[in-house]
């Protein structure tokens, strides 16, 4: 962000951000909700556990596979620890080594005001380096989603779930494109008390391509070399619509974007959840690494 055209408090704010090495790589909105640097811990990124009642057997299989994210130095057998951008650590979301397996990390808030929010992160992804091959089509996708719901007095309260993924490969085809998903998945009743339901909203069907959404990210030349990429997604909680989406040097048209929308649920008021996920395309673990995350809002 250039400070040259700003004045007053905004100029001071942006100057302070620019002078702070932890924040300077981000463009946060006026209120920083959280700044996650994984040399300081997991920063609230826990695993997305599926809903259940009475028995864990009632959990949908797609959720049963999820496990805890970890703090990683991106340690590789051939080159040692790769490290993060300015510390040794990154958050790592790892799948099982089974085609189509996925894992999801989640951070849970509620919001104070229905206004603009901004989600920024530096990320990279790789398959487990079990082969001395480029392996560029082994990771199926990495992505993120928000899980939102209006306040309990809002006349228009809905549960709204914007989903975006980078479809790296599918069935061995190297696709490298950004997709979103608005198609709702079927809810399944969990247990017998009529209190809990579950839906596999990250299921494989219903993903749509962003216009001109192909992007060749820096994958590098062997499975153990990684480069960090920047991602930003702007969303307005007032309109429950996205306002911008970009990754590195590319911006993508969100005018045709929509989220999964469903009637408000009885216990999720003002929900403001953020998820990060990875999927593997082959019988090999896929790893999503996140160096840092900044979540901010205008309130």
């Amino acid at each position: 962000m250039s400070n040259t055209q700003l004045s007053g408090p905004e100029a001071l704010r942006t100057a302070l951000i620019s002078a702070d090495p932890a924040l300077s790589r981000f463009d946060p909105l006026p209120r920083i909700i959280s700044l996650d640097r994984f040399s300081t811990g997991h920063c609230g990124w826990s695993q997305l556990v599926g809903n259940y009642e009475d028995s864990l057997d009632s959990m949908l299989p797609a959720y049963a596979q999820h496990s805890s994210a970890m703090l990683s130095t991106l340690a590789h057998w051939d080159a040692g620890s790769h490290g993060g951008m300015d510390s040794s650590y990154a958050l790592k979301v790892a799948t099982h080594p089974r085609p189509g397996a996925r894992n999801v990390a989640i951070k849970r808030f509620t919001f104070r005001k229905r206004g603009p929010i901004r989600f920024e992160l530096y990320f990279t992804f790789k398959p487990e380096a079990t082969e001395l091959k480029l392996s560029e089509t082994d990771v199926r996708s990495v992505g993120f989603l928000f899980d939102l719901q209006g306040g309990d007095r809002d006349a228009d309260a809905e549960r709204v779930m914007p989903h975006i993924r980078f479809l790296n490969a599918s069935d061995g085809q190297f696709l490298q494109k950004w997709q979103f998903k608005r198609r709702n998945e079927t809810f399944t009743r969990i247990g017998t008390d009529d209190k809990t339901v579950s839906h596999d909203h990250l299921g494989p069907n219903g993903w749509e391509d962003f216009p001109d959404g192909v992007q060749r990210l820096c994958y590098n030349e062997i499975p153990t070399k990684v480069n960090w990429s920047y991602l930003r997604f702007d969303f307005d909680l007032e309109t429950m619509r996205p306002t911008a989406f970009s990754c590195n040097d590319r911006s993508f048209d969100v005018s045709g974007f929509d989220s999964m929308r469903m009637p408000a649920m009885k216990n999720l008021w003002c929900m403001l959840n953020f998820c990060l996920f990875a999927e593997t395309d082959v019988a090999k673990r896929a790893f999503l690494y996140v160096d840092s995350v900044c979540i901010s809002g205008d309130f």
Partner: protein
Amino acid sequence: MLPENFTAIVARNEPWSGKSASEPYEAGWAREAVIFVRALKAPVGRMPTAWVEISPDGMHWMREGTSLEIPSVKDGIAAARVAHFGNWLRLAAEFEDGAEVPVLVTIHLKA
């Protein structure tokens, strides 16, 4: 700042039988770990001794030397304490033919 500590759920309601192991977990930041196993249902057959494994890369594994007995009753728990384990941790076990139990494996880490 308080030292980091973290509870990781690495296997939840996974039916273990034959050769089983938890998924690799990176914990190089931690100086100590306690690994708990809980039998979520009544086990079938004889429960084996499980052992902690360490690895240089998350792909090649060897025994660390610590072991625990997989619980033989529903909701029984067992624990193994390890330190000086490098970066990678997992729990492994080998069951007799026909023996099986759904497990909850959790790793409790402290810097």
